[in-house]
């Protein structure tokens, strides 16, 4: 019998406790609605005065010259996120496989603890390191150094621990019967992992990647410190780039009226991205549940 029913016996519907708890749950549940509403309300002036179309058709993003094209910023965000995921996913998977199947238990525990620590490191610290160490290094290859490459590398560092930890958890949650079966069939360790376990854990692994993607899209501080922040679609990875999040952080303090409202529109775009990410996650995890039942 589940918890909520256990207490039904002594408990009528209305009570002070119930009211407080319903209240807390209402606040918690409607918070996201409040946030979307506030952002939408602040974005309204720009949406109605500038019009949705101009946000993709104007020449570029120069709000003080009445240009509101978000496309270079969106492309910048997606490039940084895609690049970071392309680097982080394979490495995270390798590390997750390592921790679950190859490392001796003591090393595995230490590795996991360290990754948990690194997952909590603030982005300013990675940004600081990027600014002082990475950017001058890249500048030696191709000035100015503050570039898409720097942004990708720093964001990779930021999402790697998260993806690795979730991937490791899903790898170790694969039912032991799968391993037994593979072992009984004489599979080698590598084959077991790549042909049996990883496919079995694929929705959990995909969920890890999707969560990493969400984090990469939202990353602000570290990117702002190393990306150069020029509004244009980069031609090479050594070119500077500006993401939606860095744009907001850079301009919000100085933005008035329509400019400020336009920044809230870009926040709406970010929320839209995130909603897509969360739905993808829901789809993947419910598929996993479905598959687990079907097996």
């Amino acid at each position: 019998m589940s918890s909520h029913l256990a207490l039904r016996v002594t408990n009528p519907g209305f009570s002070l406790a119930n009211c407080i708890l319903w209240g807390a749950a209402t606040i918690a549940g409607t918070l996201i609605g409040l946030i979307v509403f506030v952002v939408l309300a602040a974005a309204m002036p720009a949406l109605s005065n500038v019009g949705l179309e101009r946000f993709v058709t104007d020449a570029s993003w120069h709000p003080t010259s009445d240009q509101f094209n978000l496309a270079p910023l969106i492309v910048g965000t997606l490039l940084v996120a895609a690049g970071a995921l392309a680097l982080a996913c394979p490495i995270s998977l390798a590390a997750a496989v390592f921790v679950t199947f190859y490392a001796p238990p003591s090393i595995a525990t230490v590795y996991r603890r360290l990754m948990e620590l690194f997952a909590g490191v603030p982005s300013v610290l990675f940004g600081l390191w990027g600014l002082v160490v990475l950017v001058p290094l890249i500048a030696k290859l191709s000035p100015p150094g503050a570039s898409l490459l720097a942004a990708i590398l720093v964001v990779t560092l930021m999402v790697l621990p998260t993806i690795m930890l979730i991937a490791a958890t899903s790898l170790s949650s694969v039912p032991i019967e799968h391993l037994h079966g593979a072992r009984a069939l004489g599979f080698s360790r590598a084959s077991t992992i790549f042909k049996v376990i990883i496919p079995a854990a694929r929705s959990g692994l995909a969920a890890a990647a999707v969560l990493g993607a969400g984090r990469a899209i939202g990353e602000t501080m570290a990117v702002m410190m190393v990306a150069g922040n020029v509004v244009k679609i980069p031609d090479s990875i050594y070119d500077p780039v500006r993401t939606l999040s860095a744009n907001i952080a850079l301009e919000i303090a100085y933005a008035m009226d329509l400019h400020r409202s336009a920044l809230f529109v870009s926040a709406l775009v970010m929320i839209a991205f995130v909603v897509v990410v969360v739905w993808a996650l829901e789809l993947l995890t419910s598929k996993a549940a479905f598959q687990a039942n079907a097996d």
Partner: protein
Amino acid sequence: MTPRYMALMARGIAAIASAVILTSSTPSIAASEEKQLVVTGASTIAPVLGEIAKRYESLHPDVRIDVQTGGSARGIKDARTGLADIGMVSRALKEDEKDLTSFLIALDGVALIVHADNPIAELTRQQIIDIYVGKINNWSELGGADEPIVVINKAEGRSTLELFLEHFGLKSPDIQADIIAGDNEQDIKAVAGNPFSIGYVSIGNAEYDIKAGVPIRMLPLEGVPATRETVAAERFPLRRPLNLVVSKQPEGLVLDFINYARSAEVRDIVESFYYVVPPGS
């Protein structure tokens, strides 16, 4: 540690926390009614006004002055709406802003800066324009090393950008930059970190940092070297006033503070930031 103990500990922490919060918020409710000034506006003026405010507070212990940045446009808007008592504006007031009264506290200029190791002596007006619109891309075209020019521009909304564009007859979308800096100090830092870069900042900021050992150099503009003296003598072409603006005639604390900021008592602060004290002050 039994669960009961942990629960008690948690309750204790919560009690202490709420006590701290309650006791620290009550004075604010009393204090915020009087003797508080809010000043917002240009990031160029904020540091020096912050120092002036600190000195004022030490003379008047019951006053608290909050200085926040936000740009000259914000300074004007907040002064108008009353969100701020005083606005900081790092340029002259425009025609449609004449409903506000401005008080000059210092003079400043905007100069181009390069890395200290860069041998370039001077740039003509046309060369500067060509560098910033992307026509000249390499220092070798100007007689320097064979390295690409790293162009550093300011982000939108900064009055330094506005002044630069106005002086050189450019529009913001025309500029092809390699790095965008948020404000003066970021710009200086970027130039100091890039031996082949060029940027433009407030002369006061630049001189302050040069004296502090930051490896940058200011370029003369149209033959006039960028120093406090040329700004004071009104010979430097790209000058700007640093103003405090208010929407109605100042009185009481506001008036007192503005007078203090323009008085001889804070001359040393203005000069320590390498701005020019207005003549007659």
